[in-house]
């Protein structure tokens, strides 16, 4: 890979340890994946924030970088393993909280915005069409590439951090036009009636277009929350972190229809629900906000839960960013949800919080949420926001 004089100086350690390590990482990845050079990035999203996943090893490494590392571009952070303020109420131990706070402190010292959300695009990290960025967090990577038309590979925690300290990333993969060409035509021949149908669609396409870039036709309209949910689902269940939807996502008019075709019918959506849904009635955990709830989704929850009470023995978590919650606070939404017995889970989510053994059965709007909760040994049910809030109130699914 060709380096500029300035990049070579960074590699020689002239800007300190964190920048030298970062250059070493970026150059090695560039060599492995055949990049010719480094390119400037507009912003970075860093994953690997939960102490639950990082452990002491990750904490030690972050600490070593924080000694002299400062980010050069706008850098936002993925969810942590707990609500940074309200962790006690969510049943997090003091030992975990202490370690998690050390992780957050290291990121603070690097100059990273402690946004702790998987939806950076809702809180001010919003790349433009064809802008190069270096993001980790697969759902956000997919959103940036597909819904915004920006360009990013699916970074890991360390490679995203490296890009932030240098302000650059190696130019390979989805940064290049030739790698953004769709390779399978997905004909959708079914209609959708609720948010979770988009999660089911992501599951169905993920399975039929594994490791491919889908070009989707047959969808007439889509809203922000629906695409947010679809992005999380399709990449979790198998596609590359890029798709096109004809007449809806940017760049779809510039691509030609791939020859290979698969069809998504009513039965595929039903099969997706059947695979995600376990045969259970009792629900002890309802969690919405995977990806993090938008303010519009919180409005919907308020409308559904007003004047009701969450069943004793069942917990309702609304996962969102602190920024969105502040809007909810001002409008009185927070009080309404908390009066009904629901809890806000800011800065965190069901995929990265230490939840093994805490709950038996989850109800959620999110297909991705079901995938990760199964790793935490929960049974899962996926449905509409209405079905989820009803489950929180009754402690049962579908009654």
């Amino acid at each position, binding site marked *: 890979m060709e380096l500029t004089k300035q990049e070579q100086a960074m590699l020689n350690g002239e800007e300190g340890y964190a920048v030298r*390590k970062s250059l*070493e*990482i970026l150059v*090695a*990845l560039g*060599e*492995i994946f055949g990049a010719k050079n480094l390119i400037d990035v507009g912003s970075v999203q860093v994953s*690997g924030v939960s102490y639950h*996943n*990082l*452990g*002491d*090893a*990750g904490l*030690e*490494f972050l600490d070593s970088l924080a000694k002299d590392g400062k980010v050069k571009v706008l850098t936002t952070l993925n969810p942590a393993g707990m609500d940074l303020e309200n962790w006690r109420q969510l049943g997090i131990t003091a030992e975990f909280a202490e370690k998690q706070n050390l992780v957050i402190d290291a990121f603070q010292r690097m100059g990273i915005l402690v946004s702790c959300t998987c939806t950076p695009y809702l809180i001010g990290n919003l790349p433009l069409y064809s802008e190069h960025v270096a993001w980790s967090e697969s759902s956000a990577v997919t959103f940036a590439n597909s819904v915004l038309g920006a360009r990013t590979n699916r970074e*890991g*925690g*360390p*490679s995203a951090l490296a890009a932030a300290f240098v302000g650059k990333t190696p130019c390979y993969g989805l940064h290049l036009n030739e790698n953004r060409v769709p390779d399978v035509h997905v004909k959708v021949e079914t209609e959708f009636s609720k948010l979770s149908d988009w999660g089911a669609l992501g599951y169905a396409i993920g399975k039929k277009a594994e490791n491919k870039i889908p070009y989707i036709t047959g969808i007439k309209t889509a809203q922000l929350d629906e695409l947010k949910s679809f992005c999380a689902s399709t990449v979790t269940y198998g596609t590359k972190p890029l798709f096109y939807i004809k007449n809806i996502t940017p760049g779809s008019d510039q691509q030609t229809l791939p020859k290979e075709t698969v069809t998504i019918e009513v039965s595929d959506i039903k099969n997706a629900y059947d695979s995600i849904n376990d045969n259970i009635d009792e629900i002890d955990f309802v969690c919405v906000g995977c990806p993090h709830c938008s303010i519009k989704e919180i409005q919907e929850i308020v409308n559904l839960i007003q004047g009701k009470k969450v069943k004793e023995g069942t917990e309702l978590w609304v996962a969102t960013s602190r920024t969105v919650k502040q809007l909810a606070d001002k409008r009185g939404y927070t009080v309404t949800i908390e009066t009904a017995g629901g809890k806000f889970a800011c800065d965190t989510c069901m995929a990265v919080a230490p939840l093994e053994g805490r709950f038996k059965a989850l109800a959620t709007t999110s297909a991705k949420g079901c995938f990760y909760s199964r790793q935490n040994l929960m049974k899962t049910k996926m449905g509409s926001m209405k079905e989820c809030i009803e489950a929180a109130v009754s402690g049962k699914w579908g009654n």
Partner: protein
Amino acid sequence: MGQLKGRIIYKGKVEGEALVTSMPISFYGGVDPNTGTVIEKGHELEGVSIKDKILVFPQGKGSTVGSYTLYRMKRNNTAPIGMINKETETIVAVGAIISEIPFIDKIDVSKIKTGNRILIENNNIDIF
């Protein structure tokens, strides 16, 4: 006995005993960072320590957190002293760089046997 040439992922010079497996390794969850012992069920190296060896394997697998596990092992003195891959990927490459473990890939790993004495120097491997 032989010489092999590969691609440098992390530069360095180190001599030691080879430990070879034909199976990919997941450092996160697959290796105990406190002892350096492989703990993945059903792995060829299950129960074997990789501490202070030159670890020869096709590539990494599993969670990206594995990079941090290698770093932890280096700090605990339970890490391999050098690594050789057939064709590496992001997790092990990043792990070797942040842990400063000499690392080469693009090597025909079938040419190396467990117990061989090996010298890694830049992109070159000598087998004694």
